[in-house]
Structures are given as C-alpha cells and as structure tokens.
C-alpha cells in the first residue's frame, strides 16, 4: 500500500507564501545494487511528483536514483484562492499515489 502524508496549512491570507511538505513511503531502489548472489536488483523508484492547485500545476519534480528512500519534498506556493491541492506521485512498476488537501484562503 502506498502511504503518503502531506502538510498544508488549513488556512492562509490571500497572497501569502505557504509551505507545503510531502512525504511518500517508497524504497527508491536504485537499480544499481546487486543481491548477495550477484543478481541486479531492478530499479524501482518514484519518477515524478506533481502538485496541482485547483487544477493548475504549481509544482513538479522529476526524481532520479540519487533521491533517498521515502522522499520528503517541501516547497512553497502562493495562496491565491480557497480550494483543493492535489498531489500525485508516479513511478516504476505502476506506482501511483494520490492525496488531496483543502485550503481556505481569506
């Protein structure tokens, strides 16, 4: 099961810069490691993270093998209007995780 956690302020002033923190449970297997018997462990990573604010993309990240397990992504955006922030993580082997958070802008 793909567990994720996001932290978004419940409310903000219009025009305020808000910090958003996200955490996704993932091994981030690099594809460079071998087992004790010498077989290559296939790559299994999150490759993309997107945040949409009321449908508008406000943040995107491409992830590579160098990113540690359970990637913590923190970023800022401007609180423009009340609504929904949607987070999507996609990755190898059909990995897909979604999360939503509501924000009230006053």
């Amino acid at each position: 099961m793909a567990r994720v956690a996001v932290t978004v302020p419940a409310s903000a002033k219009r025009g305020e810069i808000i910090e958003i923190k996200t955490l996704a449970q993932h091994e981030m297997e690099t594809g460079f490691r071998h087992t004790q018997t010498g077989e290559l462990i296939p790559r299994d990573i999150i490759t993309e993270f997107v945040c949409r604010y009321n449908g508008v993309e406000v943040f995107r990240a491409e992830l590579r093998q160098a990113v540690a397990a359970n990637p913590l992504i923190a970023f800022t955006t401007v609180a423009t209007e009340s609504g929904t922030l949607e987070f999507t993580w996609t990755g190898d082997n059909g990995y897909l995780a979604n999360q939503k958070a509501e924000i009230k802008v006053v």
Partner: protein
Amino acid sequence: MKAAALLFAAYGACLQAGDIPLAERRSGYEFMGRETRAMQDDDATNPALFALMDGEALWNRKEGERSCASCHGDAAQTMKGVAARYPALAGGKPINLEQRINACRTEHQRAPAFAYESKELLALTAYVGRQSRGMPIAIEANTATRAHIEAGRALYERREGQLNLSCSQCHDDNWGRLLAGSPIPQGHATGYPIYRLEWQGMGSLERRLRNCMIGVRAEPYAYGSPEMVELELYLMWRARGMKLETPAVRP
C-alpha cells in the same frame, strides 16, 4: 611532590574518564544538524511515520488467535510508559521490547515470532515505543537488575575487535569530537527504533550496536543474545531520566 601528585591525578583521569555526569548527558539529537532535527520534530516529515502507521495496523490485526488490541486495547493508554521500562526482567533475565513483543506473539497470540529487523517487528516496536515519547527512561538498578546492568557495563567498557576499542573510549571519553567528520554522540539509546538516514529505513538498537562492533572490527553478538540485551539494559540505565524520543531520526 605536589606536582607529581597532580600529574598522577591527571594521568589517572586520562586513563579512566569515567561516566558522564548525569547533568551533562546529551541526546544524540543535540549532535544532529538543523535539518535532521527539524525532520524528527515534525511528525509529518519524520519518515518513521510510515512505520508507526504500519505498527498501528499490526496492533489491530488479528494474528493467530487474537490481535494485540484484543488484550491490550488502546495502545495510547495501555502502552504508555512501557518502552521507557525496557529491557525488563522476565523469568530472571532481561528481555528487550522486541523480545517481549515476540513472546506475546508466540505465547498469547499463538502466532509465529517476527524476525529481528523485519519491517513488522520494527513497526510494532516503534508503535509501542511511540506511546512513551517524551517520558523519562525509567530503568532502575535494584537487587534484581544490578547484576545484569553491571554485566552490560563490563561489555561497554571492554576493549574489543582489531581496533581494540571499547564503547566507552568513544562515547564517554571523546564525545563531541569528530570521527570521520561526524560528531561522536554520547551513545544514549533514547530514540530506538530509529529511522536512520544512512540506512534509509528503520533499525533497532541492536542493529546500531552491531554497526559499532563491526566498525571496531569485532565480531558482533547475535541478535537477541544475552550479551546484546545486557548491553541494551546498561545503555538504558545510563540514559535513565532522559526523555524517550521514539521514533527518532538519526543521520
């Protein structure tokens, strides 16, 4: 003569710096960088969060004949303070929290024991430990435990491995200095199981101890061996009164 006596005293002090005074003890947390501390402080960014979620699910899942919750109910109440008292004596010998959980599984749940360092055991231990976060570590040296604590202390102070180093030489005598660029902490086991960034995952105190033993080129004790548990008991007694941070983040 006086100078000679002073010199002798100073020499003696170098040879055996001895225990860190209680008031000068500092958690490994204080030796970490700002970002790592911030990661631990915020439940939403502490990657051990997922282990806690898994642990809660395991707590409520029926395994064998019953779940943990069938007997113990709400962990937030029944497990509060428990981790601060482990390792504890059972049948005259000390057992750690992982062993307690596994004993409960085999005796009361009639389920197979989890392997050491398995995701399940770490998750359940972290979840139980979490219920005592912020509470002072409460290991007492009394007639029943003293012999085991002293045995643990003997291991802690004994030189071992090709590098011929004891735990005490780094963690009592040289804490705060650098080892390969990293600060040497005082070695207080206040936050186990931890999420260690180097491991990119959770690990127990025994895994950490084995790391150090391999580091000094000694053959590490086996998981769950009496030596390991006595060492754990000594470390927890040594950290008595310090606040439990489980699940801590360490670099």
